[in-house]
């Protein structure tokens, strides 16, 4: 019998609900974005985020379930990582619905859902593979051997990739969110205009550091203004992007090769970036690696990936009780405490 899973995702600035059949059959995926609310602030404001989730989550769930006569068979909800106030909205609604509908509840790690989102388009995932999850808050390379077997291979030591994009974009006056803004402007700029540092390229591990690059952009602009020789913003943005993405692409391919993994999977909001998609595709092809690039709507935060992973976790025996809590600092691959799973 088919299992219809309602996924609920409120970890950051998207309130999202989705209905997925048997982990891969996408029925609905509704996302209410708060990007407009946040644009004035140059980032996500948690209080606004939590309040907006409260207002939008019920209509979003209603829309995701519209046209479906019966209640879902399972509810999957993101428990972390994310903003605590936002996460609480999602799990509160999930618990209420699970109790009133008398259906099981399963907890999902937001980062693991990003790593597995591609299953919604490929219908089956062949393990193992290397996942690259890049977003506003995270930059992680992970070896995925199964739904319960994921290991961090490398991660950022300071700023996340999306955070670097946001901060540099703001500094250059290109606005928020920084990812799409820099991607757009960079298309008109020269990526070799400014030789920004390729941090950690030879660090001998698969970790990243983006804070120094952000500072290099700021110091370069300060000096350029002082000397009255400021290059075109598109050139600076494009050069920043090249420095950031070159390291990500090289380390992703190297990590897959070193671990003997034949497949790379992208996820997270920055996986929408057109240059990252193109460069990684080229590098994977050169090295004989298969590459899965989910559609942009499955890269940015969405509940379909939560419903999907929730289904596979349920199949693996996971259940959560109504005492389920949130884990704002949850790491990829970490066990969600057993005490929370009934």
């Amino acid at each position: 019998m088919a299992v219809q899973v309602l996924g609920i995702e409120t970890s950051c600035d998207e309130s999202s609900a989705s209905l997925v059949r048997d982990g891969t059959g996408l029925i609905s995926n509704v996302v209410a974005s708060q990007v407009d609310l946040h644009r004035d602030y140059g980032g996500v404001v948690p209080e606004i985020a939590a309040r907006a989730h409260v207002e939008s989550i019920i209509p979003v769930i209603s829309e995701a379930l519209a046209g479906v006569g019966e209640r879902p068979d399972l509810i999957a909800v993101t428990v972390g990582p994310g903003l605590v106030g936002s996460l609480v909205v999602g799990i509160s609604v999930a618990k209420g619905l699970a109790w009133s509908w008398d259906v099981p509840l399963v907890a999902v790690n937001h980062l693991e859902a990003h790593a597995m989102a591609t299953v919604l388009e490929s219908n089956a995932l062949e393990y193992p593979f290397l996942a690259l999850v890049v977003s506003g808050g995270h930059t992680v390379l992970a070896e995925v051997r199964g739904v319960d077997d994921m290991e961090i291979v490398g991660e950022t030591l300071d700023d996340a990739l999306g955070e670097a994009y946001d901060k540099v974009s703001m500094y250059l006056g290109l606005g928020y969110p920084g990812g799409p803004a820099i991607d757009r402007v960079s298309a008109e700029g020269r990526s070799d205009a400014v030789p920004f540092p390729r941090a950690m390229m030879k660090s001998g591990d698969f970790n990243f550091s983006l804070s120094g690059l952000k500072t290099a952009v700021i110091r370069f602009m300060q000096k350029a203004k002082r000397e009255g020789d400021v290059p075109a913003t598109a050139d600076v943005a494009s050069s920043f992007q090249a420095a950031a993405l070159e390291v990500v692409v090289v380390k992703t391919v190297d990590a897959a090769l070193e671990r003997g993994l034949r497949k790379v999977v992208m996820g997270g909001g920055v996986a929408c970036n057109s240059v990252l998609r193109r460069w990684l595709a080229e590098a994977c092809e050169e090295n004989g690696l298969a590459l899965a690039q989910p559609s942009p709507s499955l890269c940015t935060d969405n509940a379909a990936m939560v419903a999907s992973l929730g289904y596979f976790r349920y199949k693996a025996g996971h259940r959560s009780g109504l005492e389920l809590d949130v884990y704002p600092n949850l790491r990829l691959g970490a066990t969600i405490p057993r005490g929370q799973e009934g």
Partner: protein
Amino acid sequence: MELVSDSIDKTVSLGTILGRSMTPGDVVCLEGELGTGKTVMVLGIARGRGYAGAVPSPTFTIIHTYPEVCLCHADAFRLSSADELLETGIEEYLEGDWIVAVEWADRVRDALPGDALTVRLAFGREDNKRLLTIEGTGEHGRRLAGVMGEVR
């Protein structure tokens, strides 16, 4: 009081000296533009507490905690008022047996205790140079300022 750092390593070591001297209830307010080294300073504080792992930027999740060493690392970059910081539950750390370091503290000053050490970081002329202005108020803050005063 002012200190000068001429490298990231030096900023880490200043943070380490500070971290070694901190006791529960101590609060460090970090101020300064993007790229001046606020997170680097907190990395040093964590090292001074004996924490050897990575200390990533909390800009996205606002609060990172390191329970092994009772360190709370907060970041108000995305916040615009003290109330918003309070909504994240920071009081639990400010009132408990934690040491608390807050980046962009000037944006949320009213949510933080008056008794604190404030470190303002600014760019120097050379690429890696940073100027640190250090000011302690209250019992905890003045004690920590005294510790930093001995660095010179």
